[in-house]
């Protein structure tokens, strides 16, 4: 049983900078426990204290969102690919400039602005652009 797990940039501090790690488990919950034993603290960034997936984390098994596959009970098979991504605003209607994280259109809402648009997400993203020469479009 071997499952490839793709780790987003912001969580690679837990994996020694590795972009892809390998774990095992018959369910997502088992996989995350297995990973946490190898990379302590990683599970805590993905699962909340009440045992549910973090609101701003999306996990995909073979490109399908696990929240529609049983969430932490989602079944895994040998050879599956698991992708972890932070939730960002995207989709049609956003800027198509490099480095933008597409949060712009959320600025209209008074309440959500500090979450969506604020916090320097994009300056972090744009700044990384010049340094991470090897980063690719698409995680796969």
């Amino acid at each position, binding site marked *: 049983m071997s499952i490839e797990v793709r780790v987003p*940039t*912001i*969580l690679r501090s837990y994996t020694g900078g590795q972009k892809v790690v390998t774990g095992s488990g018959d369910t997502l919950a088992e996989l995350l426990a297995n990973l946490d034993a190898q990379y302590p603290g990683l599970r805590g*960034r993905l699962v909340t204290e009440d045992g549910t997936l973090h*609101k*701003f*984390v*999306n996990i995909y098994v073979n*490109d*399908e*969102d696990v929240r*529609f596959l049983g969430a932490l009970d989602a079944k895994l098979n040998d050879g599956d690919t698991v*992708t972890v*991504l*932070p*939730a*960002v*605003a*995207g*989709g*049609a*209607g*956003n*800027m*198509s*400039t*490099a*480095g*933008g*994280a*597409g*949060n*712009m*259109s*959320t*600025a*209209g*809402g008074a309440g*959500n*602005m500090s*979450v*969506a*648009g*604020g*916090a320097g*997400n*994009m*300056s*972090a*993203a*744009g700044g*990384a*652009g010049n340094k*991470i020469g090897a*980063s*690719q*479009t*698409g*995680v*796969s």
Partner: protein
Amino acid sequence: MARFDSLLDACGGTPLVGLPRLSPSPEVRLWAKLEDRNPTGSIKDRAAVWMIRAAEEAGRLRPGDTILEPTSGNTGIALAMVAKLRGYRLVCVMPENVSAERTQLLRMYGAEIIFSPAAGGSNAAVKMARQIAEEHPDWVMLNQYANEANARAHYETTGPELLRDLPTITHFVAGLGTTGTLMGVGRYLREKVEGIEIIAAEPRYGELVYGLRNIDEGYVPELYDATVLTRRFSVGTRDAVLRTRQLVEVEGIFAGFSTGAILHAALAVAHQALKEGRRADVAFIVADGGWKYLSTGAYAGTLAEAESALEGQLWA
């Protein structure tokens, strides 16, 4: 009926066309809803018309008012057209390094543009828009991510059009951005069609786009309700480009890359139905045409070159 009193009245009512060459079998059929046939060439015209009309009805917008929106994408272009025809001023805030096509399109429709520093990316534009909004409390921001009229446009128009044209529909596939299309069409079809599957295709961008400082800075649109969906796929740049090219090569439909991502998910569910021996009528959204993306160069060359051309861009 193909005669309308004004361009705004011609919004929606888009064709649903079969894809006989891409459909896996006569029992498992794919159907494309051509939203590029809207007045400014994208599905966002529906949301723009409905959000502005709702603001008018709520008394938030009066003739001569100013709408402020930090976007240069399809929503900005749609809002610019509607604002022009309804007598509003539109101010868009965007980074100075946005593509020339976008700037030209917005100006052509009469929008005013305030540029924010390129170095700050979209974040700087949002910050600037917030400052401007504070200085002008009478200016109106519509916020498509939280604006209920965005989803209602699709509940009232896109959904009923789909069911009217394809009563045997079994699957609906659309892109997940503001989530307005999926929430509106999804709710409508769930009320009318037993067992309907509502499938989201979410663009998976390059790493730069996900370069948040930490998880807590993430964002889920206020409109999003996961219970409306049955499945949600993440589609990477390479698959989106591959399907976008396939759509024009095989069926003659020239679409933007978000449509390629949607088609990728539609083909996945279609082929699954075929494998399971179930009949299926899979309708999916063509969100816009490919014109605005030609300058990326991603329609030509190898897939790897296209992937690299779209590096760091929000292609959907």
